[in-house]
């Protein structure tokens, strides 16, 4: 039953992930990315991690991608742009990214074979609920959490300073 939902979802996500890379128009890529994130959220939900699934939708599909779309529209990027086309072919970059992708793939495959993933993992009942995630985040990982939020704040202030041409 679970697999019946998992395989279509996984296939859908993979296809859209390919679509992100292969699509000629930037807006098409962005849309594929949104679809892929929704598919991922579905897979999270299937693993009983509702909270993570919802966060995936709110933060990535909902907030970040809307801004992406906004910027793409603002710049009015079209797939037919000559500059965009010219950058498409770059042998050095192609080779480098291929190596990178192959490396990641190798690592993923070795990890899969290293662990015995056949038996269904036993998770506690409270796994993935908001309460448990909140508790872990604010007890065991409170320092990394705070550091990350300070980093984000610094980035935000930096962006505002850079964007503001004249301080009044």
């Amino acid at each position: 039953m679970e697999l019946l939902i998992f395989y279509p979802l996984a296939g859908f996500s993979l296809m859209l992930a390919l679509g992100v890379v292969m699509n000629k128009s930037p807006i098409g890529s962005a849309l594929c990315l949104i679809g892929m994130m929704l598919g991922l959220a579905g897979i999270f939900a299937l693993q009983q991690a509702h909270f993570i699934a919802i966060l995936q939708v709110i933060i990535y599909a909902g907030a970040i991608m809307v801004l992406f779309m906004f910027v793409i529209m603002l710049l009015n990027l079209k797939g037919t742009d000559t500059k965009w086309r010219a950058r498409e072919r770059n042998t050095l970059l192609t080779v480098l990214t291929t190596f990178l992708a192959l490396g990641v793939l190798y690592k993923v495959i070795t990890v899969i074979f290293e662990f015995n993933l056949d038996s269904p993992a036993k998770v506690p009942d409270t796994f993935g609920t908001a309460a448990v995630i909140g508790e872990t985040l604010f007890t065991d990982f409170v320092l990394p959490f705070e550091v990350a939020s300070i980093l984000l704040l610094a980035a935000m202030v930096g962006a505002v300073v850079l964007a503001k041409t004249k301080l009044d």
Partner: protein
Amino acid sequence: MITELLITLAKILFIIGVTVGFFAPILTWVERKQSAIMQDRIGANRADILGFTALGLFHAIADALKMFTKEDFIPEGANKILHTLSPIIAVIPAILTFAVVPFGGVYNLFGREVNLVISDLDVGLLFVFAIASIATYGYVIAGWSSNNNWSLLGSMRTASQMISYEVTMGLTIIGVLMVYGSMRLTEIGAIQEDFSRWGIFLQPLGFLMFLTAAIAENKRIPFDNPEAESEIVAGYFTEYSGLKFGMFFMSEFIEMVTISAIVTILFFGAWHIPFLTTATLLSWFEILGTTGANLLVMLIHVGVFFAKVIFFIWMQMTIRWTLPRFRYDQIMKLGWKILLPLSLTNVLVTGIVILMLH
């Protein structure tokens, strides 16, 4: 297993029937009538069948006929796939929200617990918020794929407006979360059996800000800048006709029902009547037996819930026909300079009060 499935199916059919089948067509009529009454006109009485006008109720049928038979026009240079897809993307989230909206409590029917919610999610409140943020895409893509400058302007306005007000909406939701200590909508509803714990008393400012942000998310007057007729023709749906236009039209009305339902659950006691607990109601109808009493109480609760929903729809209609459209910069100022600091303060004050009470 089969009974469970059937019950869930019945709930889904009920909700879709009520929102798409009942509220959406009736609200088109209500909107016409309300505007007519507020502007001292007679209004909405032209559509008739053999001379009967039925108070103009046939306008809903006329609307549907017109939308089905009109030419479906896709402008030249438009992205055909996205142009067709975007009305669907806009209308689905509007209906999807009802998956987690409880329209009644838990009742003991025929020896089985029936919970009047399709999916009792642990993160129900966040689900509503997530769906609201997905809804943006339908409108944004609609404007972009039309290959029309007015449409593009409309969708840019949609994107910026919805992002801005989502922030406020999220922060007011946090206030509600802190007060009830749960994200499960059924639990939030159940807590409000106690009249003194209705959301409106615990989060009065939160209610006002949530309603404002919700109306802004729905893009109705006074926040209808994305479609501002006098400036950008019809904004993001300028190039839409027939059924596709109808979908945008419908999603606006369904969203109005959604907003009212969420406001009712979070701030106005959900399906409860003030000072009347479920136990009291059940004891009144004790002679009918367990199932009979439960059935009657269920009907009362569902009725009360939808009565509250109708009240908030009426309120939104009144706001829509009372206020003029805000200017674009005023909307941004209201969102970022007034509502955002206020909602942050709301969260802070709520936190301090909760800390002091403990």
